[in-house]
């Protein structure tokens, strides 16, 4: 079976971003970029399914600018067989990403699409669900366990109250949660090999998708700061402050 893995280039998870001085966006000049952590988990899961003999081919895809090809190379170093770069600079809205991915799904006919549950820049948590709707596929979001049994995807999901298991007919969309697996690091020989793996470029026009925006960011602000706190000297002082100063306990 064939697995399609959409990956996104985002600011590195360890970077604390700052709001740009003109409050139009966040300041991303000179910050470290990386593959979205949930996408790394998606790639890892696909690679494990291939290692288990369940999957036969893994195709990575990204929608992004020139530099997003780096994340496709990373995906191939981790085990993807080839990749597709949908060239589109600037911020692309979730629905447009989903439409572009749908066009790729139509070309590639994967049995499974594994995405991250959320990109850590926009914190949207949308593309997988939108893609599933557009392709009329079932969805297993926030997966912490995935197996393919009798031609179905058995997905254990993290939900607010605990865990839920659903069985999905294929083709299906799965989105990853942190607990699904621990991604491997790419080894140097694999990084070298990835440079030779096929990376095809397509444009939204090639895919027959018009890029239009319905959401405009009017401003980006720093969240309100907290006022400086104090260090207390003992547990009893802490309890006294909570009771008599903050009045949050009785």
């Amino acid at each position, binding site marked *: 079976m064939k697995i399609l893995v959409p990956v996104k280039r985002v600011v590195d998870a360890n970077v604390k971003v700052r709001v740009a001085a003109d409050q139009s966006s966040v300041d991303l000049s000179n910050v470290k970029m990386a593959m979205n952590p949930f996408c790394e988990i998606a790639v890892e899961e696909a690679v494990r399914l291939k290692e288990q003999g369940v999957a036969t081919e893994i195709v990575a895809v990204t929608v992004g600018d020139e530099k997003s090809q780096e994340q496709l190379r990373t995906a191939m170093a981790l085990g993807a067989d080839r990749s597709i770069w949908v060239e589109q600079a600037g911020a692309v809205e979730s629905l447009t990403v989903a439409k572009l991915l749908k066009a790729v799904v139509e070309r590639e006919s994967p049995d499974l699409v594994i995405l991250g549950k959320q990109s*850590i820049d926009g914190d949207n948590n949308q593309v997988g669900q939108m893609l599933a*709707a557009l392709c009329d596929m079932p969805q297993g979001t926030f997966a912490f366990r995935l197996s393919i049994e009798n031609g179905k995807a058995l997905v254990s999901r993290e939900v607010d109250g605990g865990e839920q298991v659903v069985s999905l007919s294929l083709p299906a969309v799965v989105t990853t949660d942190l607990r699904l697996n621990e991604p491997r690091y790419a080894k140097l020989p694999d990084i070298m090999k990835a440079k030779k793996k096929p990376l095809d470029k397509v444009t939204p026009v090639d895919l027959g998708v018009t890029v239009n925006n319905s959401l405009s960011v009017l401003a980006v602000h720093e969240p309100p700061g907290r006022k400086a706190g104090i260090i207390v000297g003992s547990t009893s002082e802490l309890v006294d402050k909570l009771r008599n100063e903050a009045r949050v306990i009785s």
Partner: protein
Amino acid sequence: MSVLVIAEHNNVTLNPVTGSVIAAAAQLDSDIHVLVAGSDCGAAAASASQYLGVSRVLVADNVAYAHQLPEAVAPLVSGIAANYAAILAAAGTTGKNLMPRVAALLDVGQLSDIVGIESADTFIRPIYAGNALATVKSSDPVKVLTVRTSAFDPAATGNTAEQAILDTVIAQDKSVFVSENLSTSNRPELASANIVISGGRGLGSAENFQLLEKIADKLGAAIGASRAAVDAGFVGNDLQVGQTGKIVAPDLYIAVGISGAIQHLAGMKDSKVIVAINNDADAPIFQVADYGLVADLFQVLPELESLL
């Protein structure tokens, strides 16, 4: 034009977060409908009709919606969307699973986790783990929104809104519910508790979480955890607070043995009062704490328990 709230419920009880979504909806329009889709969900529908501001509760009561799978509920919602200016749900795992699917069926965008409403088309939402707040304007004909419920005080009750039966049945077999394992706890819900006490990797083991439980019992608090504590298997994932877990904003948040990574802060930094207990004076958690105690948690927790 009216607005539609998707109720969060388990057929029997209505999750109180729905009250906060109704409060957010009330900022958009005074005519609010609530959809309760489920199976044998009459009790949940009755609870929904009690909120002030709700003019009608739409009840889609059918086995097809027993587990509220988005493959069935999304087309149900998109089918009635033309009547509404906005559709809102709580930004928990249920709403996050459903609403993007609804939006895509309607060919519109979706705004996740809104924390403020500027006008009928302009909303405020956190991005980059809450390190920035974006003001976003939507030109879509219907706004599909998930609401960060900790940012809106729940609507008041005391109403008995009319109920209307929605008999559309969406049959689908692409997704089948297999099982669920929901944690049962007598403690308050993490997302709506007034006091939360959370433990991190510093707790060291699942057994040591009992130290927190004793204090939680005395305070009537909910228990939370950092991702590291969940990953280490000390507690279940449903207790995780943070960017990719639950967002809480209680009156009092006590972080014990938690370093304060940005992803954790994203889930609790809007709490009214924050207490940090950590033996590393340089831990970033102290930068957001109102009261910090630099000490060994194994010494502090028993003391705290006896002082409460």
